[in-house]
């Protein structure tokens, strides 16, 4: 051992100064090379693909359908044939990451040519001055008149007169209900027509204690009691399922009730939040009252839309609210990402939102297409965008995604006319209303989503009994926060 240790200590590098210097120089050179390689290895800006001399148009889209990129490529196939000089590169971005990615793109200039924008984002992104004004082009696709008014309202900042984002598809919602349960209880679609009849229907379903077995068969009365005793898998169906948390839809589900009661979210000059007004509170109290009256189980309030829709498909609820895309998903087999095998999938119908004291309103969301001003090929980008917003492309895309087209003329297609369920959504577009397209909407929406989520905590009773005053208090807090954003925005706009 001693000999071995001596041998190690006696290595030339540690003993002889000259050798050590030589070695240390080698190490220095090695480290220098390492640094050079490290610095050279830092990513450069991606080279644009110009393999065949084609003009490359990059598009960012969100997952709008089960196979987002393949589906859009399919929609664009005819365009590609007719425009061989344009190469289209589609990039899919997740909804969760889209907001930050798009805002970084808008501010940094490293952006795609065309980008899908959620309708509620348009005002904010447009305020950053990153989008190409499209006023000179829109006559080619029929202008404002060709589109559904509520969808066109989201094409640019309210009152600016500048169009920056063309409506691509709309997200319009309806009431999905179980036909078999309605038939069993002698209910019809008409029983969902007004707030009063809607509430009475929920009450009737609740009191009937409708029971479903594992095969989705419906039982009421004594039959139901017997099956509950015999079959441990049998369950009582809840009248309505509504998501309460962790979901952007929380606010989208609230707002039709506020509008139907004659209230609104913001004042007409868009400087103050008014959803704590008497009218708005009427809508909020009606909607939250469904839970407080026991017509909606508090269990659903910790769920998001995806969980609620899965529960509906599995036969947990008699009704729930969702967008038109579920019609598509309930026709796709499970193996392809759909719910065709679900208990509710063959036994459902759709109704309009109930009419309130001030009328009937459906929330209008969806997505628009915008061109970033940093594009090298604005004409080609517009050509692609115009194609995607044409009647044919919108119908084709609607068939892929299940969302409704934003063009009025697309609804004349038999695809929407002949299918009774899609026809309901076509009718719902008449009552469509969208959020104000203003720069501050981007920050307002997360506040409302969180605050209304907290409101559901109170309604669910986790803090004790929930009164009208409790709800008003929570809404006032949301109003205070939104007003703070509006004030900051107004100060910035003045600057």
């Amino acid at each position, binding site marked *: 051992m001693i000999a071995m240790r001596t041998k190690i200590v006696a290595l030339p590098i540690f003993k002889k100064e000259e050798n050590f210097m030589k070695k240390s120089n080698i*190490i220095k050179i090695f*480290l220098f090379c390492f640094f050079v390689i490290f610095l050279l290895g830092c990513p450069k800006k991606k080279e644009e693909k110009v393999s065949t001399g084609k003009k490359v148009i990059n598009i960012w889209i969100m997952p709008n359908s089960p196979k987002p990129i393949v589906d859009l490529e399919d929609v664009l196939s005819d365009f590609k044939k007719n425009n061989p000089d344009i190469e289209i590169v589609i990039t899919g971005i997740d909804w*969760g990451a889209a907001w930050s990615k798009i805002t970084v793109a808008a501010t940094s200039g490293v952006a795609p040519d065309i980008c899908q924008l959620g309708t509620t984002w348009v005002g904010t992104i447009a305020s950053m001055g990153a989008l190409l004004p499209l006023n000179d082009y829109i006559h080619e696709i029929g202008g404002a008149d060709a589109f559904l008014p509520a969808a066109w309202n989201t094409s640019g900042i309210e009152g600016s007169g500048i169009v920056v984002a063309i409506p691509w598809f709309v997200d319009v919602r309806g009431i999905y209900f179980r036909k078999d349960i309605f038939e069993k209880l002698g209910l019809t679609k008409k029983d969902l027509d007004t707030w009063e009849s809607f509430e009475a229907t929920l009450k009737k379903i609740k009191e009937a204690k409708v029971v479903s077995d594992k095969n989705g068969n419906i039982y009421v009365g004594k039959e139901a009691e017997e099956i509950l005793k015999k079959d441990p898998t049998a369950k009582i169906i809840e009248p309505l399922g509504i998501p309460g*948390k962790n979901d952007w839809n929380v606010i989208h589900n609230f707002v039709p009730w506020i509008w139907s009661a004659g209230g609104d979210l913001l004042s007409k000059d868009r400087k103050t939040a008014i959803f704590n007004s008497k009218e708005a509170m009427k809508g909020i109290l009606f909607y939250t009252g469904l839970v407080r009256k026991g017509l909606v189980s508090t269990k659903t309030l*910790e769920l998001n839309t995806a969980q609620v829709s899965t529960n509906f498909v599995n036969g947990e609820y008699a009704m729930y609210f969702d967008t038109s895309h579920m019609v598509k998903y309930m026709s796709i087999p499970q193996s392809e990402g759909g719910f065709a095998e679900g208990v509710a999938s063959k036994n459902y119908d759709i109704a309009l939102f109930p009419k309130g004291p001030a009328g009937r309103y459906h929330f209008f969301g969806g997505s628009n297409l915008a061109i970033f001003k940093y594009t090298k090929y604005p004409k080609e980008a517009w050509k692609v965008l115009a194609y995607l917003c044409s009647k044919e492309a919108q119908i084709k895309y609607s068939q892929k995604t299940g969302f409704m087209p934003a063009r009025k003329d697309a609804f004349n297609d038999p695809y929407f006319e002949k299918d009774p369920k899609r026809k309901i959504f076509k009718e719902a577009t008449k009552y469509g209303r969208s959020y104000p397209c203003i720069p501050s909407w981007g920050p307002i929406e*997360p506040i409302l989503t969180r605050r209304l989520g907290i409101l559901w905590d109170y309604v*669910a009773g986790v803090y004790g009994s929930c009164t009208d005053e409790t709800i008003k208090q929570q809404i006032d807090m949301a109003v205070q926060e939104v007003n703070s954003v509006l004030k900051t925005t107004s100060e910035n706009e003045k600057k």
Partner: protein
Amino acid sequence: MKIKSTIQEIREKSYAYMFILPMVMGMLIIHFIPMLIGIIMSFLDLNQYTLSKYLSAPFVGFRNYFDVLFNPKSTIRIGLLQAVRNTIIYTIGVTGGTLTIGMIVALMLNKNFIGRRLVRTLFLFPWIVPTYVTGLLWAFIWNHEIGVVNYILTKVLNIVEKPPFWLMGPNTLWAIIVPTVWRYWPFAMLMLLAGLQTIPDELYESASIDGANEWQKFWHITIPSLKPVWSTLLLVNLITNVYSFNIVIMMFGHGAGFPGEWGDLLMTNIFRNSFQLWQYSKGAAASIVLMICMIGIVAIWYKLFREKW
């Protein structure tokens, strides 16, 4: 003369400097430059309108700090006290839980028994699970209707008649503390076990001869001998938990909504205000305030532990 000797010393130790250079460069690029930019940002008015100007955005002095700390109408201030309260409870809960469970299991695994290695490997399982999976998994475990926790409480143990909500209201805090403890105790256990194996058996034998019982041995030998390990773990846990973010995001909607009043931590509050409400400067100011507080905590730690090692 002094300069010459310094240069001489640097030359002599150039070899060492060359080795630490990559780390220094990395620290500069990854830590110090962004931190400096953060400090600058906290004095600017950087929002959706001025973001393209970046560091040329208008200078507003200490206004962002005022908004964060004293302006009751500022959105970041509205939820700040709740976030501070939650972060303190969360940090104490997770740090205490992690170290306690880590210590108990380390003491168990320090004994010789058949299958010790297998048990030790299995115990490391939660630590190697990604936070993403931990968040999703526990979101199901806490679920009001189908969650395992409520099933055990209501059907197995029968101690609760009405199943509680874990993802709503004040219970949210437990819903994020428990998964974090579950994920990080194996690391504490590993470190403490390594420390336990360095304590000479002679110390325990001498204590036994002197008539010390197990508790006295633990308190007077194990705890002081492991002080360098548990005090370091304490510091690492405090810092990590104050800056905790992932578990909340993963359990509550991936940024859509965030949990209610009892699940909002300082980092989720800062993130929401910075990147969803576009108040980058206020977010930066809140981060700097938090950093200063953490420097204070680290200084206290140094005072209490480091000097006495």
